[in-house]
């Protein structure tokens, strides 16, 4: 799991850490029963107050995403379903950022939709034109 925190982001740090754990679950770099870094390790890596990491882990524990095995560390819960709520939470956050950026530039919602589709279509076209590096060994 790679945890990134953004000093420019004004959200409380423990929320940022919680979101990073959720993101790791959604993209699959963290799976049920995996251990998460210890509070000390993560605090040291991110140079944050260990209490902040502990607070994030505590919240995730309360939500049933993580659980503590006494003396062994903290682990991802077995019944965590990354496909559901976590995915939705992440998606909403992405949407909020896009919308904020659009408003800042004076764009309306419909305009934003149109542009996103346009850009995505362009990227698809480019991908179709480019020689496929994986094509040669496909069946």
């Amino acid at each position, binding site marked *: 799991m790679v945890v990134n925190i953004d000093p420019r982001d*004004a*959200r409380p740090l423990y929320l940022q850490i919680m979101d990073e754990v959720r993101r790791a679950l959604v993209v699959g770099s963290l799976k049920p029963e995996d251990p998460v870094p210890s509070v*000390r390790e993560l*605090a*040291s890596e991110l*140079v944050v107050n260990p209490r*902040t990491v502990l607070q994030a882990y505590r919240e995730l524990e309360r939500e049933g995403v993580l659980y503590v095995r006494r003396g062994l560390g903290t682990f991802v819960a077995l019944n965590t379903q990354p496909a559901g709520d976590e995915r939705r939470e992440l998606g909403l956050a992405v949407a909020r950022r896009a919308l904020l950026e659009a408003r800042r530039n004076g764009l309306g919602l419909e305009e934003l939709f149109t542009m996103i589709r346009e850009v995505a279509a362009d990227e698809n076209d480019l991908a179709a034109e480019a020689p496929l590096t994986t094509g040669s060994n496909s069946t």
Partner: protein
Amino acid sequence: MSNVLDRALDGAVSTYAVSTQGLTKRYGDEVALNAVDLRIPEGSVFVLLGANGAGKSTALKLLLNLERADSGVAEVFGLDTRRHGPRVRAQVGYVPERHDAGYRWMTCDRLLKHVAAYYPAWDQTYADRLIGALEIRRNRKIGGLSKGDTRRLQLLMALAHRPPLLVLDEPTDGLDPVVRKRVLTLLAEHLADSPTTVLITTHHIHEVENLADHVGILRAGRLVIQVPREELQRTVRRYRLDLPDQWEAPRDLVIPAPRSGRVREVQWTIVGDERAVTERLTTSGARVREVVSLPLEEAALAFLPDEGTR
């Protein structure tokens, strides 16, 4: 380790590691510290900010009874620092403002032995680890150390007895960027391993931004605010506004600069409850386009005098 932190999170933080009442210090006619009531909760990492000469270092020296207050009281763990100077200092790891470790004729190794003997809680295993991490050359003479070398030695001496209170005056001053980062990492690990309250002053707010949970701001000797970090960030917002041609600022709102000419779009950092500020701006005819919260450093700047415009 986690038990230490668990207790810190669970225990209602009602005790103060440091508290002062009306602490005042004058140098001649100049008031360096003016009736300061500092409250540092046990277990917190408290960052004291302020411009040069705002009184930060003076405050720290008074806490350790290295200088005498003209009036007011300072307590560290409930001990009056004026009456119990040595007992207070025994519980504190102090990195002073000045890069001067004294004992210029001694080698680092000799000085460390001297210091270790003074603190019953000196942890030699930890000290050895820090000597490695901070790349301290034990056989060098103190008198021949560079500014950065002295800083590392001072940090080692402050941390290695795992004191309940760390008082760090510009701890990364004089260090190169690589060592700065390492020191902050060591500090994060130290906090995970030992129950510690930290009082830290710095000009590099961004460095300690993620370690701090409390912030105090000194302005010309006065403590203008001391709050949990989240509260500071809650009370400061940046507003992006469209202003009509004839616009007058609401009287009770402190805006950073008068509007110049016919500027229509402005971006201002304003202190106050977001809803109240937005309402006042809207009633005044301004259109609030966007409200964003700020990182700690920028939120703190709203309370510091802007030297360029004074």
